[in-house]
């Protein structure tokens, strides 16, 4: 029973049918507390659609969804905020929750953008906005966190730092994390379970087993599959999001 208590969401053979075709079908997965599940797949493979089923934004047209999460937080792939809406970072952080400025600053510090608290959201760079999005979701202290391509537009070193942060958040909040990515390159070290999508689940397993899976190699090509293995090495130091070297790896 102990394992069941940790279950946050369970999809059993779910799918979404839209404009007379199945966007995704036959999706079965489980996310537990303290676990990072990564969805990978090419464009249009239904990663975001699957995430939206889990988040209860879309209804599943078949199968069964059980959602035990009491608080979910979402980092969408794309947000366009109209100019007509005057919005500062601090307003955006409070969008769906009542949190005080101290908690907001703490969350922004984690992603290295606490200096932007009173900035106009329309003047942020793509990478800065992405960091604010992640900080907003973390500040909610969710038990299920869904991140859709969370590091797009973030520079190379920042990407690694943010993935390390996501991993850290997973253990400190003991929350379940669903991560969507179109490449496994950086996600590797931070994920417990990989699900490879292409309209259906192609294959799934631990990151190491996935890169050797023939279905995965067929989907992403030999070249990408081998680049992945190159990343399996360790640094003796790491960087803060602003580039400072730290040693607490």
């Amino acid at each position, binding site marked *: 029973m102990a394992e069941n208590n940790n279950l946050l969401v369970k999809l059993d053979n779910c799918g979404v049918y839209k404009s007379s075709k199945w966007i995704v079908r036959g999706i079965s997965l489980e996310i537990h507390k303290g676990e990072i599940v990564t969805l990978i797949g090419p464009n249009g493979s239904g990663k975001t659609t699957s995430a*939206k089923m889990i*988040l*209860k*934004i879309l209804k599943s047209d078949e199968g069964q969804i059980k959602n035990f999460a009491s*608080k*979910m*937080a*979402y980092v*969408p792939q794309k*947000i366009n*905020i*109209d100019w*007509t*809406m*005057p*919005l*500062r970072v601090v*307003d*955006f952080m409070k*969008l*769906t*929750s009542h949190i005080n400025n101290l908690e907001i600053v703490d969350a922004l510090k984690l992603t290295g953008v606490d200096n932007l608290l009173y900035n*106009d959201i329309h003047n942020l760079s793509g990478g800065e906005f992405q960091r604010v999005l992640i900080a907003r979701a973390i500040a*909610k202290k969710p038990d299920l966190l*869904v991140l859709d391509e969370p590091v797009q537009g973030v520079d190379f070193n920042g990407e690694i730092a943010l993935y390390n942060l996501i991993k850290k958040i997973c253990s400190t909040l003991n929350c379940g994390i669903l991560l969507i990515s179109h490449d496994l390159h950086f996600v590797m070290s931070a994920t417990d379970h990989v699900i490879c999508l292409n309209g259906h689940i192609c294959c799934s397993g631990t990151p190491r087993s996935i890169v050797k899976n023939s279905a995965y190699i067929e989907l992403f090509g030999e070249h990408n599959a081998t680049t992945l293995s190159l990343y399996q090495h360790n640094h003796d130091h790491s960087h803060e999001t602003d580039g400072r070297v730290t040693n607490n790896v």
Partner: protein
Amino acid sequence: MKQMGELQIMFDDFFTRALIAGIGIAIIAGPLGCLVIWRRLSYFGDTLSHSALLGVTLAYSFSFNITFSVFIISAVVALLLINLQKRTKLAGDSLLGLLAHSTLAIGLVLIGFLTSIRFDLMGLLFGDILAVDVEDITIVYLGGAAILLILYFIWKSLFSATVNYDLSAAEGMRPEVSNFIFTLLLAGVIALSIKMIGALLITGLLLIPAAIARNISSSPRQMVIIATLAGVISVIAGLFVSLEINTSSGPSIIVVALLLFIISLIPLEIKGQLQK
């Protein structure tokens, strides 16, 4: 008793009644107008107010309460629109036009049948704020209080859905519920103000103060406050102007709002120059 007497005298003056009613409308229009601008719903507002004409005609035909009848018709049109959007592939603006003009036309056709009643079409299109009585004022303030109270309770959900619907839905804000209620509130503000501002100018009183506020505010809360103030100032100044130079009151209010809008562009202009 003396105070009651003074209050009585105050309400006896048609101009004071107009001021009180107008200020009430402006206060309701402030926050709703901001949402209309943020959600790009100005044509939606237009459609609702055009259909309000049908509501008024029906009210006269069946000797119904005008405010109530307009509210019902606006709400029905709003729900019809949402339903049509799901069924056809026509773009939103085409559907809005279709509903706006067909309800307007039905309203005008029905007016033709109402030969027994002298019908003030101009009054309907442009409103007559100087003709409001104490009952109208009571309806505006009671209805307005209800609208603002409901808005206060659904604000967080509505606002988050305005920024991003998926995010709001995923994080348990129930945006589908607040969106539906918001549509009814919009129908409500139109019903409350049709007698005073008229079917053609209501959207102006919703939009222009919010547009003024956008030019000079940096947070949503600030924008709502400034929009409300700008609306109140427009009503007061517009009414005094209309009294002074004998112009029709509704249009005068909108013209004053437009002047305020032009003035509100100046800080933007200066900021732009400084940044160069």
